[in-house]
């Protein structure tokens, strides 16, 4: 199958304002990636250019070498790297055989550049996330490795977890 199911993307705060057609355009950019148990998916301090949604399996989140949380199917990490290619703020490793869908900065950027409506919705959402972060509100979360601020992975029940 090509791309990620759009239901998985609906949970990602960054994409929360996109309609079905726009989400489909984003979803088509995703490619499956498999990791054997123990493999590092993203590494704290590294540059990054990909965002992942977990399809099957679990992944452990480490910050400063300390285990902080476990991510499971439907959870995601690294979405801010799609925009700023910034430094990863956590290490994530496969806790068993792990299947993810990933999209790279190289694929995402041309879509946003071509589609101003998507771009503007992302910008609005980013601004809201920044404001909420600044105000300390219990905002819709980003993931465990790519927050606008170096946030720890969220363990709040029911909320998506942030990772750059």
């Amino acid at each position, binding site marked *: 199958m090509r791309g990620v199911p759009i239901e998985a993307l609906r949970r990602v705060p960054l994409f929360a304002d996109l309609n079905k057609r726009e989400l489909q355009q984003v979803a088509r950019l995703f*490619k*499956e*990636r498999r990791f054997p148990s123990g493999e*590092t998916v*993203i*590494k704290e301090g590294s*540059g990054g*250019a990909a965002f992942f949604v977990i399809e099957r399996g679990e992944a452990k989140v480490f910050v400063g070498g300390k285990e902080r949380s476990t991510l499971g199917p439907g959870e995601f990490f690294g979405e801010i790297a799609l925009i700023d290619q910034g430094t990863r703020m956590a290490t994530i490793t496969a806790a068993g055989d792990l299947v993810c869908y990933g999209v790279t900065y190289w694929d995402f950027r041309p879509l946003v550049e071509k589609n101003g409506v998507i771009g503007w919705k992302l910008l609005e959402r980013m601004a809201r996330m920044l404001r909420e972060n600044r105000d300390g509100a219990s905002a819709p979360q980003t993931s465990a490795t790519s927050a606008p601020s170096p946030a720890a992975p969220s363990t709040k029940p029911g909320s998506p977890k942030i990772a750059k």
Partner: protein
Amino acid sequence: MKQAVPLEKALDAALFGSKAVGLGQAIRDGLPVPPGVALSGAIVEAVAASERRAIKEVVKIVKPLGGPLAVRSSAADEDGASASFAGQHLTLLNVPSSDEVGPAVSEIWWSANSDSAITYRKRVGLFTRPNVGVVVQALLDPEAAGVMFTRNPVTGDDERVIEASWGLGEAVVAGLVIPDHFRVDRAGQVLERKPGVKSIAVRSNPKGGTVQEDVSPDRVEQLCLDDDDLAELNRLAGRCEQIYGPNRDIEWALAAGKLYLLQCRAVTRAGA
């Protein structure tokens, strides 16, 4: 362009990457390269995106190679004169057959987009979309393998420097052993033979991938190349320099008594 061609037909480095085109040139020039297939960056990306037509085309062209297979990256911007991507992109050895080549190609595409590869790209000022071609070749089961510099990379002296170990060359490339070290002058005169400590050999695993095997104690410090092998390697170095130019970094393997060229690239940092 989504293309999959026999290695000897890989002509355009912008499509297939410098490794594929270099090996294709070597075959056209009569050098002993194991048979293989070159996949363009576009078809590699299509396979990574699970496009059925692309996967079918790749499986079809790879099938005659049999198995096991070596699947290596051949990015269009790797192995350049100013930056080496050695070690950044994945090489998958001992992929059992053409049926498993799709996932292997996908893994290589992702390796070029991994955090470590992206970090490296930023460091060397190549933060651009990776264009990852792939080379698929029949995997050899070598008695010995290793690397050779056509000019001494440390001193700059005009002599061949050869490092060798038992089994697949990954034991040398990955630094898993202290390899045998040889220096040979252009006339073929052996200047130095220094046994290494080759406690393990990397071999193909019948279940796929590779396995590290213990080397029997009597072979750990036994030289894995004789003077005839060194003469053959010196001839190969000369041919590679004739074709590609001076100062080459060569990967080679000796299998069933025959010397094979696995890779030939420019030395990215010359010695003093």
